[in-house]
């Protein structure tokens, strides 16, 4: 065993890369659930974003265009879900699962011509001055732009949800849709917007896997990341900063345990392999022990407008 072989700077850098896809998907889903809708189609939207983002990235040579396309694709797919559950009142759980199945199949179809193709490289952003700070600089300020974008999205989500009128309305719709409706708020419109936001975030999360983390297109490549994101939302009690904590914990420990294995640390591999799940759940549950952290009151319930 030789822990000196693990370079902490490289480790922290790969930690952020490993966490970003889950973070993006989870923060989007947190907003969807805050509005009272449970969308289990995260995995399907992620994988669709992964393939569409990859296709656009390869064809234009610009990963940024890939990310925009992935967001649009994820949002478009989520609108399918939105129309089904909000207008046609289909069951949210079943429709969400259906969306995942649909996304997996659709992405395999779109992705056929893209197997074995190399992704365009995304330039790293070295933030002037800050990136030159010793130690901290390389860890914090030398990443690809999407890492910063994902952090900004978390900050904005927190701000909008807790500090603005729009956020208050969204939460109101999620807590009690009948009351919100009686007050004159457009429940369905608010929810559609939340679902579109969730879809766009999941799409970008998927594209981050195919354009940055792996980077290439492989069928089924999200391999359950969407389900991890869903779990993190719940354990994070639907709070943006805890979602960030959960995603970074999970991503970080996933990478750390691989490094510890390679370094030959005398901890049984089975324990290392389960540690990302175990520690993430433990930490988030312990944080949530105090206070009221229940789910949004109308989560998953069907909304019939009464006149």
């Amino acid at each position, binding site marked *: 065993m030789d822990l000196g*072989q*693990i*370079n902490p700077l*490289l*480790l922290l850098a*790969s930690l952020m890369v*490993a966490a970003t*896809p889950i973070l993006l998907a989870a923060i989007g889903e947190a907003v969807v659930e805050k509005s009272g809708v449970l969308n289990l189609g995260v995995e399907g939207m992620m994988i669709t974003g992964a393939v569409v983002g990859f296709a656009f990235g390869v064809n234009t040579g610009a990963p940024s265009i890939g990310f925009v396309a992935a967001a649009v694709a994820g949002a478009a797919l989520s609108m399918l879900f939105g129309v089904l559950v909000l207008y046609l009142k289909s069951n949210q759980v079943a429709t969400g*699962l259906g969306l*995942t*199945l649909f996304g*997996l199949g659709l992405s*395999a179809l779109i*992705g*056929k011509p893209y*197997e*074995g*193709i*190399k*992704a365009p490289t995304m330039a790293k952003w070295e933030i002037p001055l800050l990136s030159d700070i010793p130690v901290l600089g390389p860890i914090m300020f030398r990443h690809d732009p999407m890492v910063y974008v994902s952090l900004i999205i978390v900050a904005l989500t927190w701000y909008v949800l807790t500090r603005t009128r729009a956020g208050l309305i969204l939460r109101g719709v999620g807590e009690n849709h009948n009351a919100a409706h009686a007050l004159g708020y457009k429940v369905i419109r608010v929810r559609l917007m939340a679902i579109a936001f969730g879809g766009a975030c999941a799409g970008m999360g998927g594209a981050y*896997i195919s354009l940055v*983390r*792996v*980077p*290439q297109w*492989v*069928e*089924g*490549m*999200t*391999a*359950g*990341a969407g*389900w991890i994101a869903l779990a993190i939302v719940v354990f994070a009690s639907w709070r943006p900063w805890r979602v960030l904590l959960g995603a970074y914990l999970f991503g970080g420990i*996933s*990478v750390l345990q*691989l*490094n510890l*294995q*390679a*370094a*030959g640390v005398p901890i*049984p*591999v*089975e324990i290392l*392999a389960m540690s990302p799940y175990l520690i993430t759940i433990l930490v988030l549950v312990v944080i949530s022990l105090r206070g009221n952290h229940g789910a949004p009151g109308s989560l998953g319930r069907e909304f019939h407008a009464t006149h």
Partner: protein
Amino acid sequence: MRVLKSLLATAALATGLAGAAVAEDKTKVGFIYVGPVGDGGWTYEHDKGRQAVEAAFGDKVETVYVESVSESNAEGPITQMALSGADLIFTTSFGFMDATLAVAEKFPNVKFEHATGYKQSDNVSVYSARFYEGRAVQGHIAGKMTKSNIIGYIASFPIPEVIRGINSAYIHAKKVNPDVQFKIIWAYTWFDPAKEADAAKALIEQGADVILQHTDSTAPQAAAKEAGNVVTFGQASDMGEYAPFPRVSSIIDDWAPYYVARTKAVMDGTWESVSTWDGIGAGMVGIGEITDAVPADVKAEAEALRDALASGEYHAFTGPLNKQDGTPWLADGETASDYGDDGLAGMSFYVEGIEAEIPSN
């Protein structure tokens, strides 16, 4: 997760069967895959075998498959396939072993073929390839190519097949480079590109300049390509899109002749439960082209090793070899037996020199 995977599998099965309810006299051959057919590796090659069956028998045969079946929940999809009238079912991952036997007991008239396992019954054959022969060739090239003397190994699950591969690669790397060191990461998955990429990156960050993988996707190849100076080998499939570098050679699984022969046996009514374990000689294991990124003399040695393994003149596990704890395993000149105590089929120990522990399964 389990529930979802079985849902996925059932839905995939339903779609696969929807267009296939006609023609009763056709021989119906089913395949259960652990990953998606587009993984570019393991499942991709099994599906090529399925296509070969279709090509060989045309409209006399009908094939169906279910992809991405969870190893922990395979009974459902296999049962569905048997219920839908399949005559012959190939289950193509080690983890499907017990599920295959359980379903086979309920359907005595259906023939089953389980890949890489060791439990046979009247209507369950087992078949596998001697991948460790290919690993010997890889180990030789890896030992010659590494400059840091650190070889990274992405392992999947601690089962005999994977352990044999690690041992064989290590023995032959050590033979040509006594300073070589193996760093092994257990990914506990056959297919998860993001995790495979992370594992490859962790190994590269810790100094490995050769990566061997026993997982199914091409993600480690992409990670090596990005690093720039890291050698890889195609796993299960040629992965030729990463040649000539980082991929300098590969192990190719060629299931097609076996699948065609077994389907023919069912059609002729001559099918019997057998245990097949073929290597380079029989063509079940292929060594993909060794590229020019490998020095000419190393390439020639590797090809000579391949040919000696194929002809049977050399065995990949030839003594003197000790187990990891120093106890003798094979005496000078002795070769490992397939079965029995310390046989290859149930291999559960590392050879001497590997500094790591095998996790309990």
